[in-house]
């Protein structure tokens, strides 16, 4: 009797022990990303480049910068869309990474949350970075990081398709001539243009060059100029110059359509350059034209290197060394070449163009580009952007006219 009771107890205690062991295993597992659990000599870096594994040049660069600063580096990469929430959660637990690399429109959100240190605190030198790029990381007169590289949007065109349709690319200077070119392409039995108008930030990102190119401002979504930009897209869909699938296209699917070789134009980013070379046809790049000629300002993409707030302020000095190492000219050149980005400093941009003259239109586009959170929009931008992509979707899918869609967008922002 006693024996069986004891053996039952043994089993129970074993279960408890197993559960406790399991629980501690779990907690140490989640503590893997924690900085506090690490010893003093380990610094954590979070980046949105999960495509680079341990053997990549990027990972080696991080490790090298760590060695230079005399510390060990623990790198964790997240999907871009995950990183904002992960960074917020980590900050809530006072568990932020030492160096955080985030998409530029997120910087103002994290700054608003009090997650990031300013350059006054962390003594980061941002004087080399181009002011139009740096602006995305500034709000209220303070700077919260430094750009590691930039990308933006432009129009890729398929030389063969344009030739067949009898379009001279030099004639495409404004919306009118672009629409005329699309009409010629369609008449020649080819397809016009692809872009991404999906109901996420990507949709707003792709619409912005046209929105800004019309002269509209993000503070007034319902202006006549804004309506003219949305009407342009709507006309293209109605006339069959752009496929109806753009409403659901991500930038990747839109690129796949262009890569099929049937389309004359594709609005896409710097990061597709490597794929463009593989596409198997001759292509060219022009900046997105503004409504009445000239180049439209395209939104800047690309990440910022930031230093999150730490309980132990003594860590900033080393973090600053790490960031300076990552953003010194030689390393910027290497990193931005790997990422297919345009460098954020003129010095490195010149080197990039010297190495690859095809980059010239992109460097020009980046110089003309504008941060989405610039103009001191900061955390107002995400709300505006959400309404903007909704308006684009409503108008293109035909559930509202461009005017009505933008009117309700503007009233929803307020």
């Amino acid at each position: 009797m006693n024996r069986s009771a004891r053996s039952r107890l043994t089993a129970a205690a074993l279960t408890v022990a197993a559960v406790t062991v399991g629980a501690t295993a779990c907690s140490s597992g989640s503590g893997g990303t924690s900085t506090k659990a690490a010893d003093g000599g380990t610094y954590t870096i979070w980046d949105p480049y999960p495509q680079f594994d341990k053997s990549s040049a990027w990972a080696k660069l991080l490790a090298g910068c760590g060695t230079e600063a005399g510390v060990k580096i623990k790198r964790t990469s997240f999907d871009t869309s995950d990183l904002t929430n992960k960074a917020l959660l980590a900050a809530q637990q006072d568990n932020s990474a030492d160096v955080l690399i985030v998409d530029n429109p997120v910087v103002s959100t994290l700054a608003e949350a009090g997650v990031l240190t300013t350059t006054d605190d962390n003594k980061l030198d941002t004087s080399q970075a181009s002011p139009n790029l740096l602006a995305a990381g500034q709000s209220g007169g303070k700077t919260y990081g430094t750009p590691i590289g930039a990308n933006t949007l432009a129009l890729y065109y398929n030389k063969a398709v344009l030739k067949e349709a009898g379009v001279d690319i030099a004639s495409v200077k404004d919306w009118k001539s672009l629409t005329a070119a699309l009409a010629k392409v369609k008449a020649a039995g080819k397809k016009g243009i692809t872009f991404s108008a999906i109901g996420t930030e990507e949709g707003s990102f792709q619409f912005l060059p046209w929105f800004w190119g019309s002269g509209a401002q993000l503070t007034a979504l319902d202006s006549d100029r804004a309506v003219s930009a949305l009407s342009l897209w709507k006309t293209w869909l109605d006339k069959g110059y752009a496929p109806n699938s753009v409403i659901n296209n991500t930038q990747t699917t839109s690129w796949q359509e262009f890569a099929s070789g049937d389309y004359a134009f594709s609005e896409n980013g710097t990061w597709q350059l490597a794929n463009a070379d593989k596409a198997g046809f001759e292509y060219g790049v022009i900046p997105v034209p503004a409504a009445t000629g000239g180049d439209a300002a395209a939104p800047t993409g690309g990440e910022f290197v930031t230093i999150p707030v730490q309980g132990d302020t003594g860590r900033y000095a080393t973090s600053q060394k790490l960031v300076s190492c990552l953003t010194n000219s030689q390393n910027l050149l290497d990193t931005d070449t790997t990422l297919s980005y345009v460098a954020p400093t003129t010095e490195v941009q010149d080197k990039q163009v010297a190495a690859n003259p095809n980059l010239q239109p992109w460097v020009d586009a980046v110089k003309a580009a504008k941060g989405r959170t610039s103009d001191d929009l900061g955390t107002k931008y995400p709300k505006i952007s959400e309404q903007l992509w909704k308006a684009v979707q409503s108008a293109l899918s035909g559930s509202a006219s461009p005017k009505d869609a933008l009117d309700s967008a503007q009233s929803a922002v307020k």
Partner: protein
Amino acid sequence: MKHTTQSPDRRPVQSRNGAATAAPPPARTTTRRRPASQQWAAWAFLTPVTLYLVLFYAYPLYRNIDLSLRNYTVRSFVQGDAPFTGLANYRTVFDDPTFAPALLHTVVFTTVCLVLQYAIGLALAVFFHQHFPLSATLRALFLVPWLLPLIVSASTWSWMLNSDSGIVNATLHAVGIDPVNWLTSPSWALTSVIIANIWIGVPFNLVVLHSGLQSIPTSLYEAAALDGANAWQRFWRITFPLLRPVSAITLLLGLVYTLKVFDIIWIMTKGGPADSSTTFATWSYQLGFGNLLPAFGPGAAVGNLLVVAALVFGLIYVRVQRKQAMS
């Protein structure tokens, strides 16, 4: 391995046992000692499941309710000092222009999916119950949609339904029907995600109902056949009534699965265009994670509405089952 792990673990057990037996006052008799230690054992057995429930169910649920009752901005989320605002988030959600369409879509999506999944599943189950040659193989093939990861099946559906290059429109074109903007027109988007979800849900209904059919004694059918009942009568008088308990649990599980369907809609349409396929599940995600500036409070509020809806139907089920057990 086993020996080395067991011997150190045994020691704490003995001390625990000692503690347990030492706990009752010495005045107690030996006969009363044993139930006490058994009770300890019972508690020890309960601990894992209690811990599990508290850690993985009660606490997250509490946090979600807490989130929905406070005004979280990104700043207060990080600093943890969000002011308590009572039901303000729920009011925001109810007043939102998305609320009415989202509610309607959730109800339509859930009802249509449930009814069709159940009807098709039952029809197939009865069909496969005939045990014709290859029926087992065919039935296994029907399970494929269920075994595929959702992201694969949803992506495949969205390719097939693509307005310009999808196979569905190509087929329609071949038979002379105008292409339909399945995913990009506000009048078709909800239908498209419903079709995809029914396809994914049928195998589940098929499997559960088929196993339910097997528990119906064949003697009943034989007796009915002798009495002159035709196939239709046999289905409505025997199969359907005797399948009722299985049907109830299938429908309840189906309801919970369908209410929370998120992946399919998100991958295929992102709830769009213009909210035309937004349900509570996608809306909750959109609020909490779909924007650069997350609105945790309202997002959690929508999530809680979903939890309450599932809970209500769960309680109805328990009640109905109790009634059935009593009768």
